[in-house]
């Protein structure tokens, strides 16, 4: 476990020393969402209907943008080789990196959701369900994203490739993440959708580090 906290501390410290990077992700999230009223028109009813879905799609894209930070810099300057050589399991090291990635992108996104909720006229009764769904769903994005980012290391046009690999895998999170707030609006139970999201989270928690670690070892060969 020591490698988990060591990597987590290192990545958080790096993120704190150049906070512009994670702020940029949040900035993208907010600015992209404010584009929507220009596209579909500013009527509150229209916006309220699509608000939850929009927040999720923007969160997916924002998470995608931040994925190249996950391993790329370490791969380029050689620290990845040292991380792979360090004692402790690579899978646990990956979990540490994923946790740091979530704390620096997923969590800021969730914190800025209430602001978007105001902008997009999200129905108030949907907000708790949306926040809960994002709390369960954004870690899955970081976990699956780690697999895509690790696989695309050293590839030509790595960034575009990562999106092609990862977006299809994000779809279940999007489906159930949107279903939860919509159920809340329709006065139905949001709990089943949240439980499925929790299932996705635990599944990804167990399987993704394994695949990402295999991809990292391959990249370092």
């Amino acid at each position: 476990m020591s490698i988990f906290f060591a990597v987590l501390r290192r990545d958080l410290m790096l993120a704190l020393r150049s906070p512009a990077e994670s702020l940029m992700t949040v900035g993208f999230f907010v600015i992209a969402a404010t584009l929507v009223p220009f596209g579909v028109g500013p009527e509150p009813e229209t916006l309220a209907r699509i608000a939850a879905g929009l927040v999720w799609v923007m969160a997916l894209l924002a998470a995608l943008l931040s994925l190249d930070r996950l391993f790329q810099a370490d791969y380029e300057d050689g620290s990845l080789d040292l991380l792979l050589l360090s004692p402790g399991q690579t899978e646990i090291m990956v979990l540490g990196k994923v946790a740091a990635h979530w704390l620096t992108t997923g969590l800021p996104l969730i914190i800025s959701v209430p602001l978007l909720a105001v902008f997009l006229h999200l129905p108030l009764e949907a907000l708790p369900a949306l926040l809960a769904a994002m709390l369960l769903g954004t870690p899955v994005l970081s976990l699956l994203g780690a697999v895509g980012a690790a696989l695309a290391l050293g590839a030509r046009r790595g960034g575009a490739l990562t999106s092609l690999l990862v977006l299809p895998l994000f779809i279940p999170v999007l489906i159930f993440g949107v279903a939860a707030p919509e159920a809340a609006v329709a006065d139905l139970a949001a709990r089943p959708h949240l439980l499925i999201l929790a299932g996705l989270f635990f599944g990804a928690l167990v399987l993704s580090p394994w695949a990402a670690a295999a991809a990292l070892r391959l990249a370092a060969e």
Partner: protein
Amino acid sequence: MIDLATFANPARFSRIAGRVFPWAVGATAVLMAAGLYFALFASPPDYQQGESVRIMYVHVPAAWMALSSYTLLAVASAVALVWRHLLADVVARAMAPIGACFTFLCLVTGSLWGKPMWGTFWVWDARLTSVLVLFFLYLGYLALQNAFDDPARGLRASAILALVGFVNVPIIKFSVDWWNTLHQPASIKLGGPAIDASMLVPLILMTLAFEAYFVTVLLLRMRTELVRGKLRSARLRAAEADEYLPNIGKPA
């Protein structure tokens, strides 16, 4: 039990594949001709759907092939990752475009069938969406495989991706049972199919024809891959032996 290692030698595989290939071509031609005859002429139109039911004889086998190709791709990838076996890599590499084409065929015929039956080319129904995701997975697999300068690296990376994406296969298979959607549930099940023999015969014939076609193209592509690998190493050797080339990267 058959010792798989016997067939795992690329040279022996090439020999066997060379002998099987003409038979596979013949079987494809005969089965396809028979299947198309039954599907287009010798089977009755559906009492509700009319003549458009004939799309089924392409759509359903294509869907089965799309799913089974991905399953096979995942198995080959697992074998390639665990045992680092050359032929497993070759199978995976040769198969992915075929599977992607079957998936595309399934989506296109389904869409053409949807227009007269459901009144729309596309609905965001669970099965349609998950087959579309399967198509994207194939595309991602192919893109990742060709994104590296070193082909071996691309193969290994895409093998990991194939295993990750395999999670989607059971979701597609059971999507129509889990969610109550527009796409009908499976009619062919263990314990007796729910369609008449006059329609089952062309369906089975077409499925066998697709299988034979799959084997034919797979053998062809695998032999091409093996030859391409040999060519590549021969070129590398020739380049290394060429004394007029500057000695870059050579041990002193």
